[in-house]
């Protein structure tokens, strides 16, 4: 049921989840987002975007096995 993906956490999402990365199974990014907020309720309170294989997502997308999803709080470089 769903694809096995690697999820990377950055910025405050690292502190919120206590993890740099983990393997999860999800149907698509909407499903993943839902699971993440269930698993880490505090993650529901910080604004974040997702990148799929280094490409910033503008809308929810399907997932494939071995995809890499990054959880990206607002950028703060500069």
């Amino acid at each position, binding site marked *: 049921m769903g694809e096995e993906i690697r999820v990377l956490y*950055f910025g405050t999402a*690292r502190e919120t989840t206590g993890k740099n990365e983990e393997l999860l199974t999800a149907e698509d990014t909407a499903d993943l987002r839902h699971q993440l907020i269930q698993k880490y309720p505090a993650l529901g309170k910080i604004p974040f975007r997702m990148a799929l294989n280094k490409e910033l997502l503008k809308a929810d997308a399907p997932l494939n096995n071995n995809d890499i999803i990054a959880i990206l709080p607002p950028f703060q*470089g*500069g």
Partner: protein
Amino acid sequence: MKNRYLVRGPITPLLISELLTLGNDDAGTGAVSIFIGRVRDDEIDGKRVNAIEYSAYDEMVVKEADGITGTIKSAFSDVRSVIILHSTGVVRAGEASLFIMVTSGHRDHGTRACRHALEMVKERLPIWKKELF
């Protein structure tokens, strides 16, 4: 340097001197526009910032910075080279964490391209900071 866009620790005066020599052999360059970002010793909630620890999604930084460089070169035809360098790890107040340099034939495209690159760096590079007090 971790890759051509990221360096571990501060961007030191020595490194800046070296970066400034890039393009010195191009006598068609009439304008060099540079922006250096430094860590400020701001006061936050009554505490003075001592340093900032930067973290980055390295591989995506490379992809996005490649994209910024390409966008700048297409948008400003007089631009001859673009250098973007950002720190990761700990950078203390007063030290530099960002270096952008644009060489161009004339000043107009160069100064505008440098400012534009700066805005895109802030908007598009997946980099985060954590203040250390």
